[in-house]
């Protein structure tokens, strides 16, 4: 004897309950859709932000080591010896070293702002090669160069420019620095690897020497090292910078901080993922509920199909298919919404758009599993309805 309905017919049978009750099907798939949207959205977002971070790190490099003074044994702020920049530069695995030097001056918008109101902006002299060493980009204007070497010119970090209310440079903006006017020649973009520069006003070394003497102590030495030797070099730098008190030197790697930040974001991702899982669970219960009701309502149909030759397994598989299709529908809608969400957010953040294949596939797999698990009980109930019970006259 020939077998029962083929695969296409089984699918059609399973879709019957959905197409004849579209509103209810949509509502019951909603929970799963929300859960999958959250899952795909969150995973997709963390994937794109991860990709963005990697791009950023690729561009900025992970070989920057920042040498700064730590604290001495008394807990006082230490200083770096004047010779430290030169010494660091001599280390074979160091590719470039550039420093900022502390200038004891305050910067204000005009001379009429009282002395004590510095807005927390530091002033530093920028040693040669600083911009390159920290991968600083200019938002506007230009960097300190030979042309402005002997003039009172200043480049502002992004936060410093905002606090000093420096807008466009077209009209020759000046700020009051120390005891005289400085022309603002450039404004930096935020410096990812050296955020402290955002709050700094940088002046040229020649001007600094003329105004404040030639023995300014280095504040921070930005050191680019051989990418394969970062750890080894890092261990060396304290001793190199300050041979007499290596423990008073702090050496950090800013790219580590970025990674740590990303890791912190990931715990948020886990939390949101958990919420998505709860939504999915609620959606699953919703589908189970609707399926049980559907079995009760369709006893007559079950009886008719049994009379027409459907086996118990055939009836069960019809309802199981329906539940799986319902859940998959939710998963599909959730996947589309999740991808839309990720894409919109990535575009908004100026990140590259990464299609979240894995989250989407995982979401579909999840909804498949949910549909089959919650459909099992209703399917068994449908299969066990005796045909005569289902066909009783009213």
């Amino acid at each position, binding site marked *: *004897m*020939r*077998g*029962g*309905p*083929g695969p*296409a*017919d089984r699918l059609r*049978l399973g879709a019957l309950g959905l197409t*004849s009750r579209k509103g209810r099907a949509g509502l019951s798939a909603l929970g799963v859709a929300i859960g999958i949207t959250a899952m795909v959205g969150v995973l997709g977002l963390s994937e794109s932000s991860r990709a963005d971070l990697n791009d950023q790190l690729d561009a900025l490099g992970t070989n920057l080591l920042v040498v700064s003074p730590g604290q001495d044994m008394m807990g006082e702020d230490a200083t770096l010896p004047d010779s430290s920049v030169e010494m660091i530069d001599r280390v074979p695995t160091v590719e470039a070293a550039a420093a900022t030097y502390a200038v004891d001056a305050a910067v204000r918008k005009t001379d009429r702002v009282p002395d004590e109101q510095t807005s927390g902006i530091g002033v530093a002299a920028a040693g040669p090669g600083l911009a390159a060493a920290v991968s600083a980009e200019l938002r506007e204007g230009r960097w300190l160069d030979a042309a402005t070497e002997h003039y009172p010119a200043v480049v502002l970090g992004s936060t410093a420019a905002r606090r000093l209310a420096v807008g466009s440079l077209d009209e020759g903006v000046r700020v009051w620095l120390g005891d005289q006017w400085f022309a603002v020649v450039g404004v930096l973009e935020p410096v990812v690897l050296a955020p402290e520069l955002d709050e700094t006003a940088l002046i040229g070394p020649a001007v600094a020497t003329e105004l404040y003497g030639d023995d300014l102590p280095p504040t921070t030495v930005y050191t680019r090292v051989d990418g394969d030797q970062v750890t080894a070099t890092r261990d060396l730098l304290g001793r190199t910078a300050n041979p007499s008190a290596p423990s008073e030197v702090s050496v950090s790697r800013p790219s580590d901080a970025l990674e740590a930040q990303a890791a912190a974001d990931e715990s948020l991702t886990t939390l949101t993922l958990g919420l998505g899982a709860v939504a999915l669970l609620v959606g699953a219960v919703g589908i189970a509920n609707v399926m049980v009701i559907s079995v009760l309502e369709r006893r*007559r*149909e079950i*009886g*008719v*199909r*049994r*009379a*027409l*030759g*459907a*086996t*118990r*397994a*055939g009836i069960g598989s019809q309802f199981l298919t329906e539940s799986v299709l319902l859940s998959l529908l939710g998963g599909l809608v959730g996947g589309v919404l999740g991808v839309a969400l990720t894409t919109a957010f990535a575009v908004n953040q100026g990140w590259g758009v990464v299609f979240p294949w894995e989250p989407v596939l995982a979401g579909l797999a999840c909804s498949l599993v949910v549909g089959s698990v919650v459909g099992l009980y209703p399917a068994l109930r449908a299969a066990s309805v*005796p*045909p*005569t019970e289902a*066909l009783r*006259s*009213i």
Partner: protein
Amino acid sequence: MTRLELQGVTRTYGTGTAALTVLHGVDLTIEQGDYVAVVGPSGSGKSTLLNIMGALDRPTSGRVLLDGDDLTSYSDARLSRMRGAHLGFVFQQFFLLERRSALENVSDGLLYQGVRRPERRRRAADALRRVGLGHRLDHTPGELSGGECQRVAVARALVHRPGVLLADEPTGNLDTASGRAVLELFDVLHAEGATIVVITHDESVAARMPRVVAMRDGRVESDQRRGVAV
């Protein structure tokens, strides 16, 4: 040739003190080409008997043979396939699927035999034309009259050309004219060689059948062919 044979069939609903025996050792033989009316008062066990003949239900004791095969030993799957292939059912309430067209309702009669969809639809349309509903293929039950619904149900019962047609008060919900139309369809099927068993309350329906089985209190009270006792 014997098509269906019931040997000492009993059917008890419930257990213990709540047990209710509805059939008490029924022996009945339906021959190939029989055209039988089953009559009897309400509650006498007619529907129960028909369900057991149609393998929709199993007897509590006794045997049911279809073409000499003992159905009591069949598994559910085998029994279901047998039902789908050899039996056709017509019920008083039609039991069509709402929201589905006449054509889809009838083509479901072939679904469980593994017939492919295009052929199902073709044969369903043929069956609907046979019952005079060739112009109503796309109508849903809600858009059809009671008589038309029952003719759709008959089309569904005959679309796979079953050897045995079992009908439980097929005219019970119909006016005289619609009822006659359905019975005339049965007459044609019978003339073509189908074996037909019809439960009815209606004397005039029973009167046109060559054989009448009367039930009372779960027993066969009389079994007559054309006025001649068997």
